[in-house]
């Protein structure tokens, strides 16, 4: 009679201890939750062929740690997780296995929008690009970060160029060309588009590249005329139509995307189409941007 009672008592005691233990473990500081970051060289030397599994485990523990914040606060984080520790663990994970795409993807998701650490994420992505030579997503992420967060269009264009070369996706080509234009490197954009057009297998894709190239050529021509105008009159024209009245152009080149070129306030040549194909309705609307 006593034995089952003692057994049940022990079970109940264990239940209580487990509950208390779980509460305490959840309150542990990050250094204990994620653990200190061990020296990558030492880990590499001692874990042999288990590096990929260990790298996977490191990323998963960071993801779980980060996810626990959302769970607690129903999709709204009150306490900020320790991003530096998370970043160091992700860096450690890619030092163990530089091919681990989860680490790059998670860094892109967690450190750019939330913290604006695009520069650090791009350095991590740069590391991954050296190994994942087939992967177009890493240069795409880095290109997006450079353009959207860092406003560094020249770097963004280079990343998008790499993404385009790896994927053969016209979208990346368009983005690269646009960023080349934004950074004032239209000539480089033209050379890039020319290469992509020649290498395209499908007629449709070739046509897309051609259209983008035509747009950039037009921009290039207008920019040259603007330079000429500035040399002659020591100032920029008020609108592009002044280039025609002063005899630098017979007419302003047309935008193959259906828009109309204009001189923006920052002195750059832009188009009302933003180099995106216009619908018929839009084409009919008068453009009053000059």
């Amino acid at each position, binding site marked *: 009679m006593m034995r089952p009672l003692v057994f049940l008592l022990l079970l109940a005691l264990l239940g209580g201890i487990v509950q208390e233990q779980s509460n305490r473990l959840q309150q542990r500081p990050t250094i204990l939750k994620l653990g200190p970051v061990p020296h990558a060289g030492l880990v590499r030397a001692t874990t*042999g*062929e288990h590096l*990929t*599994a260990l790298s996977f485990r490191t990323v*998963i523990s960071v993801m779980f740690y980060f996810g626990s914040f959302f769970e607690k606060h129903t999709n709204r984080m009150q306490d900020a997780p320790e991003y530096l520790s998370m970043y160091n663990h992700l860096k450690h994970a890619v030092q163990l296995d530089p091919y681990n795409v*989860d680490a790059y993807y998670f860094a892109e998701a967690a450190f750019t929008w939330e913290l604006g650490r695009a520069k650090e994420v791009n350095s991590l992505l740069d590391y991954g690009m050296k190994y994942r030579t*087939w992967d177009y997503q890493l240069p795409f992420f880095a290109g997006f970060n450079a353009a959207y967060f860092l406003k560094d269009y020249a770097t963004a264009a280079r990343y998008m160029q790499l993404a385009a070369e790896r994927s053969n996706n016209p979208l990346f080509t368009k983005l690269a060309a646009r960023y080349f234009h934004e950074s004032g490197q239209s000539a480089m954009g033209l050379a890039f588009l020319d290469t992509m057009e020649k290498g395209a297998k499908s007629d449709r894709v070739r046509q897309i590249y051609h259209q983008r190239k035509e747009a950039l050529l037009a921009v290039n021509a207008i920019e040259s005329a603007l330079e000429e105008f500035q040399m002659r009159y020591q100032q920029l024209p008020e609108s592009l139509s002044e280039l025609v009245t002063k005899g630098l152009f017979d007419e302003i080149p047309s935008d193959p995307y259906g828009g109309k070129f204009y001189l923006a306030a920052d002195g750059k040549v832009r188009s009302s189409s933003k180099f995106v194909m216009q619908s018929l309705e839009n084409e009919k609307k008068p453009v009053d941007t000059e």
Partner: protein
Amino acid sequence: MTLINQVTLTLRSVLSDRILHAICGVAVLLVVLVPVFSSFSMRQVQESSIGLALSASSLVLLVLATQLGASSVFREVDRRYTSSVLTLPLSRGEFVAGRFLGLSLFLLLTTIILACGSALVILYATSTYPSARPIAWLTLFLAFGTDLLKYILLMAIAMFFSTLSTSFTLPFFCTLAVYLAGSASQEVFEYITGSLGDQMPAMLRTLTELTYYLLPNFSSFDLHVQAVYGLDVNLGDVALSLLYAVVYTSIVLWAAIVCFKRRELP
């Protein structure tokens, strides 16, 4: 009593060993859990499942190789099995070689089962989130093959220590030490032969280099990263690793036979 009889006897005795049944049970559980763990991955379920399956298999083979090798000779001596079997027309050399071949055959069978089981769970895991890159099946099976070579070599080392010892503890821990040192030797060697090694005392450097050449280099058998991400494998390197395993294992086995021949048996 021939060598073939000894091989068959060894294989039979291993297959009926309850401890090994338990280890194999754990192996099945590990492999079955691969799709569960790999599903936590965000973008590389396929790659994670391959990595975890290879790691699980490697871990099981490590336990089997050290357990079987470290207990193989000393246990037979302890049970006085050698006293009776060596009265038959079977030399001590044939006894050790027979046991080694029987145990290697068991490791081969286990690797085949683990590889097939892993292939099934990888296929299942991949079906939930297919990767843009196809599975490099040939590289995957090559990775299982090189793992097998590595653990056969490790088992030979464990058998060598077992022929010297009168207990399980010494050969087990010595084998484990060789395994850890052999896995780290390449990294250490590259470290000391680099610019950082110039600051080390010349004596220590020479000693480390000598140890590097003496210890088995297990890094050359590691094809896990290539199998996980479908990277190119240099078949020349694999052939060299095969040759290295055969030669190194033969030397260790020869040393084990010499030691066993000189040993006084009860």
